[in-house]
C-alpha cells in the first residue's frame, strides 16, 4: 500500500474517532425550540422571545374534558384538579370551582377595601351610603338578590361586586360549579407547569402526568382529555418530529439502499457509498457542538437531510467506473467536477452560516462541515478502502439521460417558456411571496393550532397577539405606571376599541393606590353616624350592618397587601406572570382582549404618562423578525450565488460554461418557487433552506451534464450517475414530502420538485457544445453533435477529462 492511502485512512480514522469522542463526551442535544425562534435585539423582540421561552404564558396548560354528560365532566374536572394540585410537576391548577378559588376568594374578601377599583372617601358619606343601600334593596328584590344577599351585611357598598365584575371579564363561563366552554360541551381547567414552556422533555412528563391523572379521575367512559398550550406544543413537536423523522428516514434510507443495491449488486459498494455521508454527518455534528456548545435536535434532523446531497458523491464515482478502472482512475476523471460540486454546496451554505438565527447558523455549520468532509472522504478515503475491496461494477441503465437530453434540446424553448411563465407568476405575486407567520413555521398540524385557539377563547385567555408593556426601574413603579396606563386604556374599553385588559395591579395594587384607598376609610364613629343617617326610613333591621362597621374598622388598621399575602392562592402566580423583572428594571405586562381598533389602542397607550408604556403587536413583531431573517438569508443567498459563480468560473474558465451550469438550476428554483406559490400560501424560511439544498444538488446535475456530451465518451456513465443520484434524492425527499408535519413536508416537496426540475432543465437548457454555445440552439441534435469534438465546450470536456 502506498503512503497516501495509509495517511488518508489514518487521518479519517482519527477524524471519526475524534468526532465520535467529542459527540459522545460533550455534545449536548437540546430540545429547546428557542434556537429556531428569533434571537433578540430590541426590547419588543427580547420580550417576545422571553414570553415564548419562559414566561408564565408559556408554562400555561389549557385543559378540556369532552364527551359524556355535563355532570360527569364537572365531576372529573374536580377530581383532576385535586390530583394535579398534589403533583410537583404543576405549580398551580384551577377549574373555577369554589374549591380552587377558595383561597383567592378569602384574600379578596379580607382585602376588599384595598382591592376595590375606584374606592375613595366619598363612598362612605351619608348620601353615597344611602344610594348604595337603596340599590341593595332593589338588588334584594331582583333575580340576582339570592346570590347577593349573603354578602350584604358586611359589604353593603358592593366592593366585592365591583371586584368580581372586573374579574368576570377574564373568567370563563361556569356550569355545575366549574369552568365550562360557552356551549357547555367542554369542562375547562387551566394549569401552570413547574418546568419552562420550551423544555420539551419536562413538558412531556407534565403531559403524561395530566393524562395519567385524568385516566384515574375520569368519572365515566366516553370522557376525553384535550390538552393544549405552548409547553404541550413543545412536547408534541418533539414527539411528532421524532416520530416522522424516524419513520421517514427509515423508509427513505431503505429505498435509497435498495436503489443502490439494485445498481451495484453489491452490499459492500452500498456500504462504501454510505461512508462519506456518515463521516460528514458525524464531523458536522461535532463541529456544531464545538462552535455552539450544544446541538439542537431539529438541526440534527434537518442537517441530516441537508447533507443528503453527499450520498450522491460516491454514486458519481462508482457509477462512472469503466471496465478495468480502479476507483482512483475514476476519481482522476471525475474529481475536478465533483470538487466543484462539493465547493458550490459549501458556498451555498454561507447563506445559513451567517444567519443571526442560531438554529439556521447551526444548520450552516453542519451542512458546510458535513459536505466538505464527505467530499474529502469520497476523494481520499474511498479509494484507500476500495484498494482492498474493489467495488462492483454498476449495472447499466436501459436509458441514456444525456442522449435523451440532446434529443430533448428541441423542446428547449418549452423550458424557457415555462421559466418566463414562472417568473411572470412570481412577479405577479411579489407582494404575497413570503409567509412570515411564525404559526406557519410551527411543525404542528393546523388542527392542533385551531384547538388551541378554541380553548383560548373558551377560557377567555387574553389575545396572544396584543400586549401593552410598561417599563419602570422598580416593581412598585411598574405597578404605579401600569395603573396610570390602565386609566387611559379604560377610555378605549368605553369607546369599544378593545374588550378589556388584565394587569398585575388588579390583584396587587401599588402601595400608592393601596394607601390612598386605606386612607379613604372613615373612622368608626363617622361611619356609624353616616350609616345611621343613610338607613333612616329604609326597612333594614337595626344592627343589620354590624359586620360592615367591624370590617371597615379592621381594614383601617390592617397592613397593606403584599405579594406574600397572595402566596398559594393562584393570585401570586397571576401577579408574577404579569410583573416580570428585566435587567435593571421591571416590566408590567397588560394582555389585551378583543382588540378591535389596534390603531386607537396604540394612540391611547402613547398618551399614557411617562412614555413608558408600549403597545406591542406580537404577531406583527414576530413577522417583522422572521421577515428580517428571511431578507438576511436572501441577501446571504445572493452573496452565496456570487461566490458560487466565481467558483464555477475558477473551475470552468468560461463565462458561458458558468452560465450554462447555473442557469438551469436557478431556472429550476424559479419554477419551484412558482409551483410552491401556486400550491400554498407563501414561502417560509424552511422553503428557503430547502431551496439551498436544491441549489447544491441541481448544480451537481448541471455540472455533470455539462461535463458529458455526445462524443465526450462518458454519456453512458454520466447518464447512470445522474439517474442513480436523482432516484435516490427523489426517493428520500419524496418520503419526507408525505410527512404530516408542515415543515418536513415543505422541505420534501420543495426538494423533490426542485431536483426534478433541475434535472429536466439541465437536460433541456443545459448543454450545448458547439460555438457559440447558444443557450437556445434550435438546430437538430444530430447536426450539432457532428462538430462535437472541436467546439469550446468540447474543449472544456476534453480538458476536464485530461486532468
Amino acid at each position: 500500500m502506498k503512503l497516501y492511502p495509509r495517511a488518508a485512512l489514518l487521518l479519517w480514522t482519527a477524524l471519526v474517532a475524534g468526532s465520535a469522542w467529542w459527540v459522545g463526551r460533550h455534545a449536548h442535544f437540546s430540545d429547546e425550540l428557542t434556537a429556531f425562534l428569533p434571537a433578540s435585539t430590541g426590547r419588543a423582540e427580547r420580550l417576545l422571545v422571553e414570553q415564548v421561552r419562559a414566561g408564565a404564558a408559556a408554562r400555561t396548560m389549557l385543559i378540556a374534558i369532552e364527551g359524556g354528560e355535563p355532570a360527569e365532566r364537572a365531576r372529573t374536572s374536580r377530581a383532576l384538579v385535586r390530583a394535579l394540585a398534589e403533583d410537583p410537576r404543576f405549580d398551580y391548577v384551577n377549574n373555577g370551582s369554589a374549591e380552587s378559588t377558595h383561597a383567592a376568594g378569602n384574600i379578596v374578601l379580607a382585602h376588599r377595601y384595598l382591592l376595590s377599583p375606584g374606592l375613595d372617601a366619598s363612598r362612605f358619606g351619608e348620601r353615597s351610603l344611602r344610594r348604595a343601600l337603596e340599590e341593595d334593596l332593589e338588588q334584594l328584590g331582583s333575580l340576582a338578590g339570592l346570590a347577593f344577599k349573603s354578602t350584604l351585611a358586611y359589604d353593603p357598598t358592593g366592593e366585592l361586586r365591583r371586584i368580581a365584575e372586573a374579574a368576570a371579564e377574564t373568567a370563563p363561563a361556569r356550569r355545575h360549579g366549574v369552568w365550562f366552554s360557552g356551549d357547555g360541551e367542554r369542562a375547562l381547567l387551566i394549569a401552570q407547569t413547574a418546568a419552562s414552556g420550551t423544555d420539551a422533555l419536562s413538558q412531556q412528563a407534565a403531559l403524561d402526568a395530566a393524562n395519567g391523572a385524568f385516566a384515574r379521575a375520569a368519572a365515566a367512559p366516553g370522557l376525553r382529555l384535550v390538552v393544549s398550550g405552548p409547553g404541550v406544543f413543545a412536547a408534541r413537536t418533539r414527539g411528532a418530529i421524532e416520530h416522522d423523522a424516524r419513520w421517514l428516514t427509515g423508509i427513505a434510507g431503505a429505498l435509497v439502499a435498495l436503489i443502490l443495491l439494485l445498481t451495484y449488486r453489491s452490499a459492500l459498494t452500498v456500504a462504501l457509498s454510505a461512508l462519506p455521508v456518515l463521516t460528514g454527518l458525524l464531523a458536522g455534528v461535532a463541529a456544531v457542538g464545538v462552535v455552539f456548545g450544544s446541538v439542537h435536535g431539529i438541526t440534527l434532523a434537518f442537517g441530516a437531510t441537508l447533507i443528503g446531497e453527499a450520498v450522491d458523491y460516491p454514486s458519481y464515482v462508482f457509477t462512472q467506473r469503466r471496465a478495468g478502472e480502479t476507483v482512483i482512475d475514476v476519481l482522476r476523471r471525475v474529481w475536478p467536477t465533483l470538487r466543484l460540486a462539493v465547493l458550490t454546496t459549501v458556498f451555498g451554505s454561507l447563506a445559513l452560516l451567517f444567519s443571526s438565527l442560531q438554529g439556521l447558523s447551526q444548520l450552516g455549520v453542519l451542512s458546510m462541515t458535513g459536505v466538505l468532509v464527505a467530499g474529502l472522504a469520497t476523494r481520499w478515503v474511498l479509494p484507500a478502502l476500495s484498494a482492498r475491496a474493489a467495488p462492483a461494477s454498476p449495472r447499466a441503465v436501459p436509458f441514456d439521460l444525456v442522449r435523451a437530453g440532446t434529443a430533448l434540446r428541441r423542446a428547449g424553448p418549452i423550458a424557457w417558456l415555462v421559466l418566463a411563465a414562472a417568473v411572470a407568476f412570481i412577479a405577479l405575486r411579489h407582494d404575497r411571496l413570503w409567509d412570515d407567520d411564525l404559526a406557519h413555521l410551527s411543525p404542528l398540524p393546523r388542527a392542533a393550532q385551531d384547538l388551541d385557539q378554541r380553548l383560548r377563547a373558551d377560557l377567555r385567555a387574553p389575545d396572544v397577539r396584543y400586549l401593552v408593556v410598561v417599563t419602570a426601574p422598580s416593581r412598585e413603579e411598574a405597578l404605579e405606571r401600569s395603573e396610570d396606563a390602565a386609566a387611559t386604556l379604560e377610555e378605549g374599553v368605553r369607546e369599544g376599541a378593545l374588550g378589556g385588559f388584565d394587569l398585575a395591579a388588579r390583584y396587587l395594587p401599588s402601595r400608592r393606590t393601596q394607601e390612598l384607598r386605606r386612607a379613604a376609610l372613615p373612622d368608626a364613629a363617622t361611619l356609624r353616624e353616616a350609616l345611621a343617617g343613610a338607613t333612616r326610613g329604609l326597612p333594614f333591621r337595626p344592627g343589620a350592618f354590624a359586620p360592615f362597621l367591624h370590617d371597615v374598622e379592621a381594614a383601617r388598621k390592617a397592613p397593606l397587601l403584599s405579594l406574600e399575602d397572595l402566596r398559594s392562592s393562584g393570585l401570586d402566580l397571576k401577579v408574577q406572570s404579569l410583573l416580570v423583572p428585566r435587567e435593571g428594571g421591571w416590566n408590567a405586562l397588560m394582555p389585551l382582549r378583543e382588540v378591535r381598533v389596534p390603531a386607537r389602542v396604540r394612540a391611547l397607550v402613547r398618551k399614557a404618562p411617562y412614555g413608558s408604556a408600549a403597545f406591542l403587536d406580537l404577531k406583527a413583531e414576530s413577522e417583522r423578525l422572521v421577515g428580517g431573517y428571511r431578507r438576511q438569508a436572501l441577501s446571504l443567498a445572493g452573496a452565496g450565488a456570487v461566490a458560487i459563480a466565481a467558483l464555477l468560473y475558477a473551475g470552468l474558465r468560461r463565462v458561458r460554461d458558468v452560465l450554462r451550469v447555473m442557469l438551469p438550476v436557478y431556472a429550476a428554483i424559479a419554477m419551484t418557487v412558482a409551483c410552491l406559490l401556486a400550491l400554498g400560501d407563501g414561502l417560509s424560511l424552511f422553503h428557503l433552506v430547502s431551496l439551498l439544498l436544491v441549489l447544491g444538488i441541481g448544480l451537481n446535475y448541471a455540472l455533470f451534464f455539462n461535463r458529458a456530451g455526445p462524443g465526450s465518451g462518458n454519456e453512458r456513465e454520466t447518464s447512470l450517475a445522474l439517474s442513480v443520484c436523482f432516484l435516490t434524492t427523489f426517493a428520500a425527499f419524496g418520503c419526507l414530502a408525505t410527512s404530516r408535519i408542515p415543515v418536513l413536508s415543505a422541505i420534501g416537496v420543495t426538494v423533490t420538485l426542485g431536483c426534478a426540475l433541475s434535472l429536466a432543465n439541465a437536460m433541456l437548457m443545459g448543454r450545448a457544445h458547439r460555438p457559440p454555445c447558444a443557450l437556445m440552439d434550435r438546430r437538430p441534435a444530430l447536426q450539432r453533435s457532428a462538430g462535437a469534438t472541436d467546439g469550446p465546450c468540447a474543449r472544456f470536456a476534453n480538458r476536464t477529462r485530461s486532468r
Partner: protein
Amino acid sequence: MTSGRLLRSFAFAAALFVAGAAHAAGQEARLTFGQLMATLAQVSTSHARYREVKHVSMLKEPLNLSGTLFYARPDRMEKRQTRPFAEVIRVEGDRLTVERDGRTRSVSLRGAPLVDALVESLRATLAGDAASLESLYEPRVEGAPDRWTLLLTPRDPEVAAAVRSIAVAGSGARLARIEIVEPGGDSSVMTIEDESP
C-alpha cells in the same frame, strides 16, 4: 344515556309508580310530570299579572313587588316589574337583559348558573320543557290536573346553596303560585293571575 341517568330515571319512574299506586288506591286521577309538561307545552303565549312577597331576614318587613309577566313560545319571556321600582327583565335564548334606572345589562344565562336555574324554573315550566327542567332540578309532581304542584329541587350544589326548593302550583295549563324557599329560611312567594285571552 349513561347508567347514572338511567338509574335515576328508573328510580324516579319507580317512585312515581309506587306513589301512583298508593294514590290510585285513594281516588282521583293522578298527574304525572310528563303529562303536566305536555299540558303546559300546549300554551303558545301567555300574559299575566303577578305579586311577589319576599321575606328577608335582614329586613324588618317583607318586600312587596308586582308587575306583569309575558311568555311566548319557545323561549321568550319578559318580566316587567312596576312596583316598588321599575325593572324589565327579558330572556330570549341564552340572553338575559335587565333594564333598570335607564341602564341595560345583559348576561349569558350559561355563565350564571343560579340565575339560569331561577329563570328556567319559570320559563321551562311555562314551555313544558321537561328536559331542561330535569337537567337543572329533580322534579316531582303532586296533585291532579286541575290542581297540581310541581316541586323542584336543584341538582347543582352551587344553586342548592342559594335555593332549597321551588314549588310551582297551578291548574290545567296555568301557573298560579311560585314559592322559593332558601336554605337560610328566607322565602319568596309569587302569585300569578293569568290574563291571557
